[in-house]
């Protein structure tokens, strides 16, 4: 079962499967597009990344997701690949995943006779592993707009801008008061562990403090404990560990930061 095929066809090239019992969901209209309802926004799982990037609901209500989509693959990959595929592929480097974690995305799973909902953090259990049972498909993603947050941050570190698999990435939603105090914070790192890392202890340690370099530096030990990066073709574990911390400091660039805040 597949949608865009951008991941599957690369894998099939290495390991051809015969016979070939493949079902492509890509042309099912009901699984495409974004709908608004009192419950929130529903994103059809087979919506292409490009279609979501140009969707006004995604751009204005969920800018952190739009920022992740913007740097995913390349233009043709964004025309073909789907958000549902990015979730079910469950790569720790999936560019839509950290944004979906900080947005507390809830997934709608359908089978012939049933519908169930599951939080994305409970759905993805390891690299390439998710809790999709036989006979089920991911139908879509539910997101709730939370206008409270005033910083919508996404940063991906890769070897180049286009067509790069992330070495480390960070998504963040913050509510920072006028005086610079972090009132609410959601954080999620990609590519630094077998799944996306969204450490609640780091979030808790930031809450109530001034958004300053000092405050961010203080949570670094907690962050380094929460992540478990690996050495691979793209980067070493040590490099990922350093970068995961450094990209948190970039939050300062997302806020009209004044020298002297919190010091």
């Amino acid at each position, binding site marked *: 079962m597949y949608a865009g*095929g951008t991941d599957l*066809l690369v894998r099939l090239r290495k390991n051809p499967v015969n016979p*070939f019992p493949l079902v492509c969901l*890509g042309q099912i209209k009901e699984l495409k597009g974004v709908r608004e309802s009192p419950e929130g926004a529903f994103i059809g799982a087979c919506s292409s990344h490009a279609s979501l990037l140009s969707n006004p609901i995604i751009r204005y209500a969920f800018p952190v997701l739009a920022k992740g989509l913007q740097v995913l693959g*390349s*233009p043709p990959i964004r025309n073909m690949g789907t958000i549902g595929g990015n979730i079910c592929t469950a790569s720790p480097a999936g560019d839509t995943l950290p944004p979906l974690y900080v947005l507390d995305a809830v997934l709608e799973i359908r089978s012939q006779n049933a519908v169930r909902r599951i939080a994305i953090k409970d759905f993805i259990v390891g690299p390439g592993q998710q809790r999709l049972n036989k006979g089920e498909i991911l139908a879509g993603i539910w997101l709730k707009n939370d206008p409270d947050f005033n910083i919508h941050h996404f940063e991906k570190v890769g070897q180049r801008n*286009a*067509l790069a698999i992330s070495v480390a990435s960070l998504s963040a939603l913050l509510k920072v008061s006028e005086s610079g105090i972090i009132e609410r914070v959601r954080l999620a790192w990609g590519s630094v562990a077998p799944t996306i890392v969204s450490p609640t202890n780091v979030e808790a340690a930031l809450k109530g403090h001034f958004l300053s370099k000092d405050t961010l530096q203080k949570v670094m030990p907690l962050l380094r404990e929460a992540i478990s990066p690996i050495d691979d073709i793209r980067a070493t574990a040590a490099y990922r560990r350093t970068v995961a911390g450094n990209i948190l400091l970039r939050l300062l660039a997302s806020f009209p930061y004044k020298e002297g805040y919190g010091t």
Partner: protein
Amino acid sequence: MKISFTLNGKKIRVDVPPDRRVLDLLREDLSLTGTKEGCGTGECGACTILVNGESRLSCLMLAAQLEGCHVTTIEGVSSAKKLHPVQEAFIEHGAVQCGFCTPGAVLAAIDLLQRNAEPTRQDIREALSGNLCRCTGYQKIVDAVQGGSAKLKKGQTS
């Protein structure tokens, strides 16, 4: 399996094995060798085609996914006697060296210009960021896409 789609303006029906990639259907079965295979893994853009006007990678699609779609390959952008303005601009600006990336780059440029008639150089760089070129250093390709944009605009007003 039998599939029907529109290829370069003509409706066709073909019988293909279910694991046939679009790239192989075009090159091997239909002899449209303008579409190139570079990496075969979606990273180089040499196999770019337009499906319903959007750039896609024919190495990452199975033929069955074309059912009911409008497909344009590089062979379909020019008429018998006249090149597409973007192709003319690629020649005029020296944006073609070995030529292997050119069909994909031209189609990605046409996709961009359909959505954005007057792109900035940054817009062009982003739109063609999935098309690798090992010869030109990209400057002349960006020049050519700007040239193509001007030609298309002139064509519309004259």
